[in-house]
């Protein structure tokens, strides 16, 4: 049994590990993309819970972030951003805990 490349970015989504050699390219947006891998290797995706605005919950490594969003966007060199109502836009915090 061989181990993973130590440089792999390994996140978790949809109940399984997601392995990538590189972070997601700039301007990838969920949807229509399914997964965004940030520079931590964390996998972002949308869950199946929704709110009154038909926005879906934002999952990071299969953990609910407590946010609902219409879109999740990634640009290299910047934190992951979410767009939704009523807040407009939020960025993932440097502490890796919240969208602010």
């Amino acid at each position, binding site marked *: 049994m061989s181990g993973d490349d130590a440089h792999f970015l390994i996140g978790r989504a949809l109940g399984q590990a997601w392995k990538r050699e590189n972070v997601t390219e700039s301007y990838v947006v969920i949807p229509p993309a399914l997964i965004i891998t940030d520079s931590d290797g964390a996998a972002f*995706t949308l869950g199946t819970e929704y709110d009154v605005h038909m926005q879906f919950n934002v999952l990071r490594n299969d953990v609910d972030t407590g946010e609902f969003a219409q879109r999740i966007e990634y640009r290299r060199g910047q934190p992951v951003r979410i767009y939704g109502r009523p807040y407009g836009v939020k960025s993932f915090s440097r502490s890796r805990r919240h969208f602010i």
Partner: protein
Amino acid sequence: MREFSISAGGITVAGATTLIFVNPASAPNPNLEFLRFWIGQSANATSAQQRAQLETQVTAFPTLTSATPTKLKPSDPNASVITGGTAGAAGTAGTNASAEGAGSKTAVWDDAFNVLNGWLHVPTPAETRVMPAGFASGLGLFLPVAPATLTNWAFGLVFREV
């Protein structure tokens, strides 16, 4: 509302493959409204574009791995009217076809995506696809061309019984 999901992960596909096939039950049973589809590849470092397709297929249906729908509301006492099946017959669902079946396919939604980013299709309420009970066709989530890497595919869908 009673919603159910069918998904699979870490799958090795044979090539141009029906990933999931759901065939509505006979009337009078609930119609199936499809709310979400996704495809991704959980372990692949190579960027590549891949076509995806929603299609309907009449008999003869694909040969599949049986897949039982999972309740999104676990406390719901009712199971889905759709059960797991390997033959794609009415009222059954399965994944990862090993044979596509001779029945003709009709493409109803075409798209393409990068395998590193995956594909998530969440129709707006006006865009959802409803497969009526007793319909002669099933709905398939299909890779119309073989992917460059056949391993570690993950995919799924969510439907509601209406």
